[in-house]
């Protein structure tokens, strides 16, 4: 009897949590497949399956362009911040220097800093950057200014987080492995390349995915620093999708756009989740 209660309780809770988390996404998928009239009828199962929202977004709208912009910003940001924080993590976890814990603490404090607090200052800097950039480069490539600035600010906000996470991971790698390599005659750079990099690969993937999601979903800076339709990123792109008439909110298209940008993240995470975190140093030390 007790066992039955336990089971009901356990699975019941699980079902509630799953519904709570997955239902909005399910509803988004369903809405994205419905025509403009059907959207406003509350229902749990789709009454029609109609890909017209997707066709509109992908072929008649500049939405693919916003995806490319986001991909560009995310790739640049994530690669720069991961590279920098990989080296930073090594020094913060392995090299003894004065004020190391202070430094780590400051990094943590910075990563808690609200974006909005620096927004106005950032905008002023952005204007100066634009002027500087225009003076140097040909006007033909000026369209990329906003994106480059986005890369810069995102990297700035991402690095404290990625440094912190990678430092924690690197602290978990036994010191003896590094010492064994030192005794074997490896230089610090070689250790970083041949020993730490392969061991840290899962951790780096994990951190990169988290950073990528953060960049992918960022809205405030993207809205502030992009002015033309050609340099929108996806979040702003979705927000600015408009309907055929002024007062219509085109839910179907918005939901279709959300699904298009969410599905790749879900797929990446599912594919990599086996590698994330697992077996960082299996077999290296006792056990």
């Amino acid at each position: 009897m007790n066992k039955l209660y336990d089971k009901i309780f356990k699975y019941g809770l699980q079902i509630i949590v799953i519904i709570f988390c997955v239902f909005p996404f399910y509803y988004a998928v369903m809405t994205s497949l419905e025509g403009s009239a059907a959207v406003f009828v509350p229902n749990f199962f789709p009454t029609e399956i109609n890909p017209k929202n997707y066709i509109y977004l992908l072929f008649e709208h500049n939405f693919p362009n916003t995806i490319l912009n986001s991909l560009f910003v995310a790739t640049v940001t994530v690669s720069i911040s991961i590279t920098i924080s990989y080296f930073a993590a090594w020094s913060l976890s392995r090299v003894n220097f004065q004020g190391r814990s202070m430094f780590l603490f400051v990094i943590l404090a910075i990563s808690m800093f609200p974006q909005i607090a620096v927004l106005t200052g950032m905008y002023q800097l952005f204007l100066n950057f634009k002027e500087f950039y225009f003076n140097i480069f040909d006007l033909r490539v000026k369209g990329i200014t906003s994106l480059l600035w986005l890369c810069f600010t995102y990297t700035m906000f991402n690095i404290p987080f990625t440094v912190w996470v990678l430092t924690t991971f690197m602290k978990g790698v036994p010191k003896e492995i590094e010492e064994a390599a030192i005794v074997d005659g490896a230089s610090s750079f070689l250790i970083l390349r041949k020993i730490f990099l392969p061991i840290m690969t899962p951790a780096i993937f994990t951190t990169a995915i988290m950073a990528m999601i953060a960049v992918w979903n960022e809205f405030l800076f993207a809205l502030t620093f992009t002015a033309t339709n050609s340099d929108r990123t996806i979040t702003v792109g979705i927000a600015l999708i408009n309907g055929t008439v002024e007062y219509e909110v085109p839910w179907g298209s918005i939901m279709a756009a959300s699904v298009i940008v969410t599905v790749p993240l879900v797929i990446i995470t599912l594919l990599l989740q086996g590698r994330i975190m697992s077996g960082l140093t299996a077999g290296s030390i006792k056990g």
Partner: protein
Amino acid sequence: MADININTVNKYFGDVHVIKDVSLDIKSQSFTVLVGPSGCGKSTMLRMIAGLEDINSGTISIDGQVVNDLPPKQRNIAMVFQSYALYPHMTVFDNMAFGLKLEKRSKDEINERVNEAARILQIEDYLQRKPKQLSGGQRQRVAIGRAITRKPKVFLFDEPLSNLDAALRVQMRVELAKLHNELEATMIYVTHDQTEAMTLADDIVVLDTGIVSQKGSPLELYDRPNNMFVGGFIGSPKMNFISSKILSKSSDATEVDIMGMSKISVSKMSASSSEGDSVTLGIRPEHLVVNGDSDGSWESKVFVVEKLGDVTYLYLEKDGEPLVAETEGHSEIKVGDTVKVGFPAGRCQLFDSSGQAFK
């Protein structure tokens, strides 16, 4: 070939003075074991020789060359870590070849050396496996193999067997002893296990809170400990210590009492002692004579009996003085019995109030 001279070396961790004016000479091709309780500085000593820790003062020289400022790779040493510290993403072969590749050896030479080491350690079948597919004993062999391939002048072992189970530890101990004969290299071995120290060492160095308590061959340390610390540390079960008083002194012997029950004349002297001084009498459990004739005696009830098959240990106590005595394996003595314990004078050690041994 590779003498190691350590000269008045000091090491601080912050304000903590962990190695205090240690001087040691380690002979080429000898097997030296650094032994001591946790925190005595033995691992730090080894890491200083390896070059993984800086030295605050003093010199360490290997083969006549001062190595204080040389990085580990230029010291011609190899180290085996307690936790094995294998590179988890490399195969066994690559683990063992890593150092050689860094030395830019030719492919043939690398192959030859790794296979040679694998043959010695009997891990030829596992060369293409990853460390996580190996058992603890196999991993430890790989760690040793990694050291062998580089043919260093000095091998440093940092408690290499402490993660293995008891049976495997005994087996690896024997193999290490064989390996030492085969390689004819200088080996320095750190352990807290006095059995490993006794069985492996040519020389044992007992460290106590950063100073060398005594250095000598295993039997020297067993028979003639310099002080109570060494007496208590070497040997298992521990040496018994009984508080006692000097009754009289002659030119070649000191007479002490045993719990006021009997007297015993030990042929050891200390110039600084005088009649009436408190001393500690040390005697090993295996030297006590249970229910037999001997020089001095002591009677007590038996509180615990441990039967190990080959021997039996009797735990006795009288007026707060505990005593462990060894007797034959098939002893009839039971808990609660009263036994008479004899103290052969030739086996007794005397220590003064500061713990120094009478000579």
